[in-house]
């Protein structure tokens, strides 16, 4: 680029940034009180709308001047709804599990008075002398936020907030560089694709840049289908501009003029927010024709995926954009050569693209300094299941599973024992306790039999049955198989049927070997990544929990007492209190009856084993028991009527 247009570009961006700072200054100024409420999907599900309304009403009633700002997701889902109150004279304070009642109290006590209501404080967001900061918690201080740095702190629907916090300056910088320089930085950073496979991002870009054909595309893959991972959704809902900025840099580097954000239709809020963000960026000349008054044009659109997990696979994704059945194509040719409408196409995950702006700003070497040598940067996990501090966690690569599960996320609740962690969703595997010291990076996880996948992580306690977990994932992949190739279409069905048989107590000798043999052939023979990885949950559970398989097959017993056909509930008559009716009302099938001596018993023929009676039974009696195999439950006949 010639010197003159370089100067114009810098001037144009500087004036946008000044405007942003002016506007954002108005929001975050010294004289104003601001209330930031987390309003991403998880916040909304926890009642953020009611909380917001309560704040607004209380403010109006008390005639207090404060601004209520909707922000995205901080990742601390266990504590939603989260609210940050920024009042002059105080550090910004983070409140957790805010209810409309608490909102009312906070307005009266803190905004009107000067009492920060310590009992509801999670921590301060900045160093100060009054309140301990959130950084004193491992859940905060062991994180390293590269991708999610601004998530939950800015209003995703206001582009100026992102710009005021340094957003789009990486794009402005990138446009002053040659495409080769950008690709060099990305290569130097060692960034690997965050969609799961871990291919070098810089290399992918280089292939497309090298292609001579015109009409290239950039596709942002936000077809997050892994049933237990939601970081892509959270990022798009909380800070869409960082992703868009990454897309624009990528498009400039590879020479694409069109980009598509492929979002699942199941994420309506993310779709809406991304569309709005694209609109705003276009208005400011950060997208569209002649970006920042340079020669670079980029048109970004949103495409909604219609609910097919397999469309996360890049060749299937392309077909679905083309209005076809989303069936994967054998590779090669790769999309980098023949992609959307036959044109060279970069397909990158949301997290990969969101990592680009910081790399351009701070240099490839900077990212290389984070994480491990072969897997630089950070990893985002959605840690869910039987875990105290569930939510999204961004950690440097190389942190061990143990410190992620126990230090950062607080371990397993209710004094239960940790049993296994399932990583990488339907393509991943279950790792037992002895793998807790495995460092989290692409290669170590693959070696252990799991995989990074999209970052779903489900922690399971002693009550989780590993065969049921394998069955669950196979049920998922079998439903989501596109049906194109023989191994995946029919093979996964046989795996599922066999697992189902085992969980129902109808396992046979030879079933374990059948599962193993079929799994290996499916892995080798399938056409696409979905089929090639589908048997992983089966293989890892057989490898690490073979005794559980044997208990199911030989003794018809579920050691974790989870498989419903192999367990039974009964009421311990010695403990049951005469005349107590607590369990009766809780039973959805009216299977609990009164015995002759006015105690309770369960009619096994009606019981659906939902466990509600166990929850309902007052803890001082604790009379409901669960056993496996079901024959262990004593048989008590219902007294005859009359």
């Amino acid at each position, binding site marked *: 680029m010639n010197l003159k247009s370089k100067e114009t570009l810098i001037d144009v961006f500087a004036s946008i940034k000044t405007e942003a700072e002016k506007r954002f200054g108005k929001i975050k100024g010294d004289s104003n009180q601001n209330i930031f409420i987390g309003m991403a999907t998880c916040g909304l599900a926890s009642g953020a709308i009611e909380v917001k309304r309560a704040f607004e009403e209380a403010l109006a009633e008390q005639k207090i001047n404060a601004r209520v700002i909707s922000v995205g997701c901080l990742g601390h889902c266990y504590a939603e709804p989260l609210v940050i109150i920024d009042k002059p004279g105080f550090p910004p304070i983070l409140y957790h599990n805010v209810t409309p009642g608490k909102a009312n109290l906070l307005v009266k006590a803190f905004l009107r008075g000067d009492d920060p209501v310590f009992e509801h404080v999670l921590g301060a967001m900045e160093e100060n002398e009054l309140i301990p900061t959130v950084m004193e918690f491992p859940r905060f201080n062991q994180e390293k936020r590269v991708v999610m740095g601004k998530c939950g702190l800015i209003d995703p629907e206001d582009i100026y907030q992102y710009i005021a916090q340094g957003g789009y300056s990486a794009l402005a910088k990138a446009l002053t560089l040659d495409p080769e320089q950008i690709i060099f930085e990305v290569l130097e950073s060692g960034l690997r694709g965050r969609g799961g496979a871990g291919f070098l991002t810089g290399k992918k870009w280089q292939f497309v840049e090298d292609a001579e054909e015109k009409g290239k595309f950039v596709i942002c893959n936000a077809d997050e289908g892994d049933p237990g991972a939601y970081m892509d959704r959270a990022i798009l809902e909380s800070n869409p501009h960082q992703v868009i900025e990454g897309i624009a840099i990528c498009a400039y580097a590879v020479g694409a003029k069109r980009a598509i954000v492929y979002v699942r239709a199941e994420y309506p809020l993310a779709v809406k927010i991304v569309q709005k963000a694209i609109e705003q960026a276009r208005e400011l000349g950060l997208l569209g024709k002649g970006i920042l008054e340079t020669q670079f044009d980029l048109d970004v659109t949103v495409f909604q995926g219609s609910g*097919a997990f397999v469309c996360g696979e890049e060749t299937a994704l392309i077909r679905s954009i083309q209005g076809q*059945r989303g069936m994967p*194509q*054998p590779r090669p040719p790769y999309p980098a050569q023949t992609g959307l409408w036959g044109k060279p196409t970069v397909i990158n995950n949301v997290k990969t693209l969101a990592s680009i702006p910081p790399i351009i700003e701070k240099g490839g070497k900077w990212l290389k300094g984070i994480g491990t040598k072969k897997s630089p940067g950070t990893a985002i996990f959605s840690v869910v299941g039987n875990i105290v501090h569930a939510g999204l966690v961004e950690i440097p690569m190389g942190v061990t599973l143990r410190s992620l599960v126990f230090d950062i996320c607080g371990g397993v609740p209710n004094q239960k024992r940790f049993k296994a962690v399932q990583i990488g969703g339907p393509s991943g595997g279950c790792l037992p306790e002895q793998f807790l010291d495995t460092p989290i990076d692409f290669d170590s996880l693959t070696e252990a039999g799991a995989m990074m996948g999209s970052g779903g992580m489900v922690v399971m306690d002693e009550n989780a049955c590993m065969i049921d977990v394998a069955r669950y994932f196979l049920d998922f992949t*079998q*439903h*989501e*198989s*596109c*049906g*194109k*190739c*023989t*191994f995946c*279409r*029919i*093979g996964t*069905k*046989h795996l599922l*049927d066999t697992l189902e048989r085992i969980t129902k107590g109808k396992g046979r000798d*030879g079933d374990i070997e*059948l599962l193993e043999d*079929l799994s290996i*052939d499916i892995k*080798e*023979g*399938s*056409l696409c990544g979905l089929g090639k990885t589908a048997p992983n949950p089966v293989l890892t559970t057989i490898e690490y929990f073979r005794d559980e398989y044997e208990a199911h097959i030989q003794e018809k017993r579920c050691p974790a007492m989870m498989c419903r056909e192999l367990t039974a509930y009964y009421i311990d008559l010695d403990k049951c209190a005469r005349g107590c009716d607590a369990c009766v009302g809780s039973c959805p099938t009216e299977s609990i009856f009164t015995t002759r001596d006015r105690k309770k018993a369960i009619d096994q023929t009606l019981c659906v084993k939902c466990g509600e009676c166990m929850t309902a039974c007052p803890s001082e009696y604790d009379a409901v028991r669960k056993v496996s195999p079901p024959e262990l439950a004593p048989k008590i006949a219902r007294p005859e009527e009359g």
Partner: protein
Amino acid sequence: MVTLIVDNKEIETQEGSTLLQACLDNGIYIPNLCYLNGIEDPPGSCRLCFVEIEGYDQPRTSCRVKVQQGMVVRTNTEHVRRLQKTAFELLLSTHHVECRNCPANKKCELQRIAKFLHFGLKLKRLEPLERDIEVEHEHPFLEYIPTRCVLCGKCVFVCRKRNGQPMLSFAKRGFDTVISFFGENDKPVDVCNECYACAEICPVGALLVKDSPNTSNPWKRGSFNDKGKCQTPLK
């Protein structure tokens, strides 16, 4: 021309040809169901045509490999046979075996593959899978038998080739995938020009022509070569 070595035998073939076609042309049979000579972008879906190629760790589907000068290929290694047998066994577990009553008897591609792989038509380690399929849209003169269909997709391909638009297509997904005509009250919406190419090309007798006594057995109408491949020229 390109020369390559298949099973220690040197063969010659046209440049740009697929490995599978090159082998078939030279009298080296590799089991296959979804491949058609001249098909652009072979679907590679039946997963039967595996071969081992020197320089690659894993067997590859030969329909998706373009021949290269000096390529060294083996079609009958243990690894290849294991994958072929499993794929075949899986297909068989959804195929209702009733050869005696099937018009495709003795011309059926599955019988041929079974013979080639020395693999019986009876299931041993797998249980037959019942597919719970309703034929949603009846066709006035074509009969579709989903319990025979191996979803090779040849019918969809030839129909598109002949008519520009396919009058039948894959529908649903995964294990429930079927070949479907779309229609209302038994009347197909798409007008079929009765070329019967779909029934002729079906390798397993899952698409039949009904009603007219002359055409009830498409296996009489089409002219087939000994490989069970339709010789009717495609447009």
